[in-house]
């Protein structure tokens, strides 16, 4: 009896969580008439024309590539920068280290809309408006503080004896980072990369403000454009939405255990 109640309670939240996904997937597989007849019903057949239309009409593959061209450099640069900085903040005692770390933590709290205006003006002066590099640099600056915080708390858990014994064996600090710390932090770095990839994939305001050329825009911005053009063609919009969340959702499902460990390690302390 008690178990049933617990399951009913938990099941209600499962529905809350996934119902919007299911409806969009259903709609993306329906013809227009079918959708207007009943929004809730499952599709009667496996109708793929909506997907074919979106793929042919909207040049989504171009926007898909743009999302990758932005996300991958962001993930790689932040991973490298935050490993170096996280190691220093955790294992080396240098002058004014705590103040410096506090200044970095400030970056975690800043509301994006308030810094995006000066960033926009600065990029304009540098000629970086309407370029991918402008978006990449901005995204790196915004997500770095979390990554440094994350890597530092991971390195804090690595015992100092490991470093000392490597040093006795004659390793210098760069070698310690590359040959001892990086292999040790493989799973943390993996979780961090996933979180960072998800964030740059989701990113909307940054590319919206910085990029105006449709050929350079990532998926998220292209989607809002598409919605604007086909405002009443819900089955098309549904197919476009599925194409955008599917890569990230599949990635999440495959890696969910590690991903959630990463989230709890990053915030849970």
């Amino acid at each position, binding site marked *: 009896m008690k178990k049933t109640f617990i399951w009913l309670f938990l099941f209600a939240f499962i529905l*809350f969580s996934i119902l919007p996904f299911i409806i969009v997937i259903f709609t993306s597989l329906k013809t227009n008439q079918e959708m207007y007849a009943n*929004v*809730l019903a499952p599709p009667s057949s496996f109708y793929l024309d909506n997907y074919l239309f979106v793929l042919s009409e909207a040049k989504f593959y171009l926007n898909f590539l743009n999302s990758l061209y932005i996300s991958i450099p962001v993930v790689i640069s932040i991973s490298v920068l935050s490993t170096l900085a996280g*190691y220093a903040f955790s294992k080396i005692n240098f002058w004014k280290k705590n103040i410096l770390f*506090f200044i970095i933590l400030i970056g975690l*709290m800043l509301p994006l809309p308030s810094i995006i*205006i000066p960033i926009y003006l*600065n990029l304009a002066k540098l000629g970086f408006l309407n370029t991918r590099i402008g978006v990449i640099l901005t995204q790196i600056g915004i997500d770095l503080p979390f990554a440094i915080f994350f890597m530092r708390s991971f390195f804090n858990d690595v015992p100092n004896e490991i470093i000392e014994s490597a040093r006795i064996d004659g390793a210098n600090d760069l070698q310690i980072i590359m040959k001892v710390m990086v292999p040790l932090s493989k799973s943390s770095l993996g979780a961090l990369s996933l979180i960072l990839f998800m964030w740059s994939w*989701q990113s909307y305001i940054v590319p919206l403000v910085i990029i105006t050329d449709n050929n350079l825009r990532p998926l*998220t911005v292209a989607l809002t454009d598409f919605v604007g053009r086909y405002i009443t063609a819900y089955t098309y919009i549904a197919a476009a939405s599925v194409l955008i969340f599917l890569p990230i959702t599949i990635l999440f499902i495959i890696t969910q255990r590690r991903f959630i460990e990463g989230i709890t390690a990053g915030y849970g302390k």
Partner: protein
Amino acid sequence: MERYIKKMKNLRNNLLGYTLVLPAFLIYGLIVLLAVFQNFYYSFFKFTNITSYEFAGLDNYINMFKDKVFYTAIGHNLLWAFMIIILLFLFLTIAVFLSKIKSRTILGAIYFLPATIPFVVSAIMWGWIYNPNFGILQSIADLLKLNFLRQQWLGDPKLAFYSLFLIGVWTYFGFTVIIFLSALQNIDRSIYDAARIDGATETKIFFHITLPAIRNTLSFLIVFSIIMSMKVFDIIYVMTQGGPGYSTEVMSTYIFKLAFRGQNIGYSSAISIILIILVLSLAVTVLRRNQKE
């Protein structure tokens, strides 16, 4: 000699520390910190357009305190924070229930799913659910003859804010459940067993063992939720842009619209500065608390 070695070691550590931190700090500083200082600087100017501005002293700050929309927006941020904090206890209940069953990891992942997708996609999904013509809620209303579900969910100024809040809950609750769950799993099982042997009821166990044991996590999530609520932006901007009227306006949407639509950058920056001070002072409270422990 010993002193000399110590001095050399210090020098070496400083050199090494700064070399490792510098690349990250430079990018962060030039992009993010610089923007904060510029915000502060702009907040003392009046902009006629994006390139021409003149010194205006404290005018922007004075105007802010006379601006009704500013108060409406800040009120919405506070209401959002208040409602999320109340709901944290519901999310904690979910986590407590999850900790009692075997498939907790999978369920946690399902609850977290909405947080993984781009919010522009969430906006489309929920736009559908709320659509007054053939939306999901309307269809459910038809099916089950529940007339109270027939509403202008996003069009009615009285409802729009709460409709958006529900989307906020949808994307946020999984995160809190996961964090609560990991805290619950760190509690020593033997304490529970001992309490049960002593004949304690489940309610008593919750209030006297579980709640004190996860006190730190709870206070972290309360402060984190307040900070999130002060920053809330994406979903509101995409779905209603603060409307109808100003019924869903929050500080971030107001800041964004003032700068990019009204080109009123000086005034927008002044509100930004107030928002940043608000969020930072909250955050410092958390950091202080963490440092004490």
